[in-house]
């Protein structure tokens, strides 16, 4: 720390050796829980450093180690090797198991994004239950996208970086089976289901106290 090049010095000196840059990137990524982009890393390195090259070296160094350098959401992060998960599992509280509805809703959003509520319901054939979207928003796996410029301007949902991080995906293009689904036309936006099974708006059990149905309620999503 005492002999570390400060910002000012680094202006007047040559950048550190590539080996030294690799150490720096290693330290930065080890200390960060969030993935960092090459740009973010380069900003933290002394002037003239080449983060991309240092990352490449580091990736090789950690290949097949107990901790590996991976790319998620276009950024870099150290994560434990997935084959060692069994050793570490007790370390963390096991995450709550998602309901079938939540898993399906998440997948539909991931593969069809941006997806409106009624599109999710159209695929599943049932109303999206209360709290499902809430849960996914709470996990920060989905967020609001642009409103769809169709009548009613419905809100859309898209997946987040945290989603990619959680499932170890570099981008949504790397979702498993995405290409096959696309090729099979199963992700095509079909005209609304006037010829198919319609989703009935399901009464929310929480709204029991209401005498008359709210005319504004159905299908705003």
């Amino acid at each position: 720390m005492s002999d570390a090049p400060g910002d000012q010095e680094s202006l007047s000196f040559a950048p550190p050796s590539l080996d030294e840059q690799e150490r720096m990137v290693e330290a930065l990524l080890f200390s960060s829980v969030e993935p960092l982009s090459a740009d973010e890393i380069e900003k933290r390195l002394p002037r003239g450093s080449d983060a991309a090259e240092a990352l490449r070296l580091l990736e090789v160094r950690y290949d097949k180690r107990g901790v590996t350098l991976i790319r998620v959401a276009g950024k870099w992060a150290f994560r434990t090797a997935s084959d060692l998960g069994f050793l570490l599992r007790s370390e963390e509280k096991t995450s709550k198991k998602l309901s079938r509805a939540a898993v399906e809703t998440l997948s539909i959003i991931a593969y069809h994004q941006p997806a409106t509520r009624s599109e999710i319901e159209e695929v599943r054939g049932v109303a999206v239950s209360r709290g499902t979207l809430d849960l996914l928003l709470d996990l920060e796996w989905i967020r609001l996208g642009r409103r769809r410029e169709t009548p009613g301007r419905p809100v859309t949902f898209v997946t987040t970086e945290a989603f990619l991080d959680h499932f170890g995906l570099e981008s949504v293009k790397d979702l498993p089976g995405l290409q096959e689904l696309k090729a099979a036309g199963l992700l095509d936006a079909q005209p609304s289901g006037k010829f198919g099974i319609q989703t009935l708006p399901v009464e929310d059990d929480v709204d029991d106290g209401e005498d008359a149905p709210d005319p504004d309620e159905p299908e705003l999503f």
Partner: protein
Amino acid sequence: MLDGVNDSAAEADNDSLLIDIEGFEGPLDVLLTLARQQKVDLRHISILQLAEQYLAFIDSARELQLELAADYLVTAAWLAYLKSRLLLPPEESPEGEPDADEMAKRLAFQLQRLEAMRKAAARLMARDQLGRDVFVRGAPDPVAVDKQTEWRATLLDLLQAYARTKTRAAYTPLHIERPKIYAMEDALKRLTSTLGMAVEWTLLQEFLPEDWREERLMRSALASTFAATLELARDGIVSLQQEENFGPIYLRRAEKRPS
């Protein structure tokens, strides 16, 4: 995990489906399970057979007097219609009605899509997950000294906060503020006690209490005081005088007191 009904149930007869009706997520889910019983690729599914399977399923549910949600019955009606249309030679289909083949194709597409999304969901969940298979650094370094407070708030916090304020507003009891009224009893009391000074004709407004002369309050005070003077005039205690309609009203103590 994604299959509410496992394969062995799907291979069993309709009765076992009934037992599991709680496990279904709507008619499309039932249809997908029934379609799997045909043991063919979903692309080659017989929609006519599927419609019959579904109607049989609904019938036996009715026989068992199981309560079926409305959407199950709506789908049954729709499939019964589709079935009749599929059985009709195409040239006899009524003008202006949707083509039965189109409807069948559309349903087949919905089933394929649902199945595809379920498989995709299973593959997604089978990936190495953070905190389950793959772990982050447990103790990020405590090296730094720069203290910077980062204020945390998520979109969900924001939405819930807004929903909360709006809900709270919706539930706020409506208080209709009662306008301040100068009671006639007060006017009577005040007039009676100050009447002694009204030997000469005095403008009615002069009798209004000081703190009621402000624009907003005066109407009430004036009306009550006027009503009180009428009351007193009837009893012969005061005399009133007004020279023209809407003109100023004067009063003074009556000369003769009633016996």
